[in-house]
């Protein structure tokens, strides 16, 4: 069964149709339109909250539930939401919840190295057309397989960052030790496999943690494990079908695509969970690989995974040159394709301009504006910049489309 995004009419049919206006909209139909485009939440409808409306509310919730479930990692203000996808292709609507990027640390690192890496992840940021591009999570890996070491490392990590974490080991004893240091923090547990699923499931239930499921290049096994874990009572799963860099790269792309197609096109609820990719694999495939080569390969593998449906990825490098193209790509893929990126029109000042300072103008298309603004800032120019409302169209197109005309500029000047 194809899982379709509901239309405003589908939602409207189940609303009270009283046009009471309590939700802030003029009519129930207007509210329905906002609800399906993710601009208003169902809870705003006071009438629906009434007890006798419960069945209707449930039906609406079911109708609006994303085909890919949303999983929340972390607690309080420091959570990362993954999945929650409403559509398979971004042009159909908008992708929600940008791919979370987790950087790894290991339990054999010196304290100094560990803290340095955590700090680099926290400090990473790049301002791009008004957005802060950042890294999202820390993946704590056990290379020693020693529970006490893993616990100590996890403790150090959570003492030094509020970023949500992934605890990585296939040994349930190690994960249990890690959880002792992060019991209330809702980390992702990586991972349940065909061998350890029961112990991992117990830990996930006990600590209310999302659980990753790993079945490298075996979708039948993956599906069976999901079925088993759902029956076991786990609700929040993250699926890892395996990331290959060389042989098997085609399997990776095709498996990720197949999982998403199953969730959207055949309505397979067992595959309607966030997907996890591991570009870090680039560091493990050859002995003595040059670091820049590993960074390069890891980055391009990550790029393909971001495009092809990964909701969370684990990486090793924290180098700006390798991460900048990636976080930019993620920003691009996750922008709303329905509207141009705009900034607020009006007068902006750079430095402390006076009556002798130049007055310039540009469009309110975000790319144009931020390019101009960053040039003015880096040149330390004292200037006025008038941002003309061109409906978010760039300079050349808005001139051609009569959205940036002498009249428009004159009225903006006034």
């Amino acid at each position: 069964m194809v899982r379709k995004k509901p239309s405003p009419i589908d939602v409207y049919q189940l609303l009270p149709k009283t046009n009471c206006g309590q939700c802030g909209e003029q009519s129930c139909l207007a509210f329905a339109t906002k609800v399906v485009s993710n601009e208003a939440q169902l809870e705003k409808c006071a009438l629906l909250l009434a007890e006798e409306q419960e069945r209707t509310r449930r039906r609406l919730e079911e109708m609006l539930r994303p085909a890919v479930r949303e999983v929340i990692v972390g607690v309080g203000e420091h959570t990362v939401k993954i999945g929650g996808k409403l559509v398979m292709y971004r042009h159909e609507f908008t992708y929600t919840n940008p791919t979370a990027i987790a950087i790894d640390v290991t339990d054999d690192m010196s304290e100094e190295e560990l803290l340095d890496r955590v700090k680099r992840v926290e400090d990473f940021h790049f301002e791009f057309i008004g957005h802060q591009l950042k890294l999202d999570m820390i993946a704590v890996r056990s290379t020693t397989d020693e529970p006490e070491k893993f616990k100590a490392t996890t403790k150090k990590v959570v003492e030094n960052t509020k970023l949500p974490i992934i605890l990585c080991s296939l040994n349930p004893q190690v994960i249990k030790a890690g959880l002792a240091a992060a019991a209330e923090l809702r980390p992702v547990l990586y991972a349940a496999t065909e061998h350890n699923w029961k112990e991992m499931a117990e830990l996930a239930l006990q600590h209310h943690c999302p659980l990753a499921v790993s079945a490298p290049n075996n979708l039948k096994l993956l599906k069976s494990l999901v079925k088993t874990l759902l029956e076991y009572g786990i609700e929040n799963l993250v699926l890892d079908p395996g990331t290959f860099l060389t042989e098997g790269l085609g399997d990776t792309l095709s498996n990720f695509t197949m999982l998403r197609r199953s969730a959207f096109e055949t309505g397979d609820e067992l595959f309607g969970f966030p997907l996890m990719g591991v570009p870090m694999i680039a560091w493990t495939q050859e002995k003595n690989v040059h670091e820049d080569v590993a960074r390069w390969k890891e980055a391009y593998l990550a790029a393909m995974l971001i495009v092809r449906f990964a909701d969370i990825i684990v990486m090793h490098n924290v180098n700006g040159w390798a991460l900048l193209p990636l976080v930019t790509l993620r920003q691009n893929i996750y922008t709303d394709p329905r509207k141009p990126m705009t900034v607020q029109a009006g007068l902006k000042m750079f430095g402390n301009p006076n009556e002798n300072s130049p007055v310039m103008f540009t469009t309110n298309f975000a790319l144009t504006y931020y390019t101009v603004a960053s040039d003015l800032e880096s040149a330390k120019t004292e200037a006025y910049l008038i941002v003309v409302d061109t409906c978010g169209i760039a300079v050349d197109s808005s001139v051609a489309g009569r959205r940036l005309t002498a009249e428009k500029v004159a009225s903006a000047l006034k």
Partner: protein
Amino acid sequence: MKTKPANSIEVDFARPAKTYPVKIVEVKLGATKSEGGTRGKSIVVGGENAPAFTNSRTFAPHAPVIALDIFDMKVSLPRAVKMHVREVLEDPAAWAKLAVEKFEADLVTVHLVSADPLIKDTSPKEAVKTIEQVAQAVKVPLIVGGCGDPKKDMDVFEAIAETFVGERFLLSSITRDMDVERCARFIERFGHVALSFTPMNMNLARDLNRRLYEFLPREDIVMDLTTAALGYGLDYAFSNMERARLAALAGDAELAHPMCSGTTNAWAAREAWMEMSAEWEPRELRGPLWELTTALALLLTGVDLFMMMHPAAVKALKDVTQQLAHGLPGKADRIADWVCAKT
């Protein structure tokens, strides 16, 4: 309360194969002696019957190919690119040889920049001479790149088409502001291929293709839907190509042509070439990765032909496409230990 299962539950999974009513047209680029040209080999692009990696872990029936850019005069290039071609900047034939022999280009794009009336306004005759030199230097199929002036490009393309009869050069590009009928007629008459270029708009792409169909067989048309740089509109380019390919396979035959991407446009992003503060350096790595990232995003929409510039980006894209073309299965034990791997 449910009872927890004691054993794992086995369920069935079969990969649902999805069939599409329309197949992308196969277009042959270049012609060998037996095919009426002088190229060492010809290259076929297109022919897909499903979106990339939807039904298969490999490309079917042809893997994407890469053309390297060369220019007929000295142009300003990003430093990261220039360092690899410094010796050949003023010698298109030597540049083409370098592109093919060292950087393993499948095709070469000769950009006839000097023909621009606002640059050197060199004559169509000189353009023919440049192409002659390149065609003698390398045996790969050629892409002839115009200067961007629609009127001048028609004259240049026509002169080249007529001189190199039957070579199946890809003429880059035929645009809506040209005399489409005139272009289509000389392309058809002299045995070449049209690159139908439109500015990121599916309706305009359909419209231009329809105008070409009046005079040209569908097998002589490749389309370029415009590539914008990563960070500077790649989102639009990506979705436009993804939509076009999905629409084509679902039945929109006017879009069922192989797709070409001018991936070199990635260098229009300042973050690709600009010197930035230390944490983002070296730009010699950041730049080619910018181009490669742009290419890979578009590879996944189904692009068949990439026009690129930086040798490292080309090499990596080749590695990826060859790996994918071999279609070898992933073995679980190769990646099973990433969790505990020491790096």
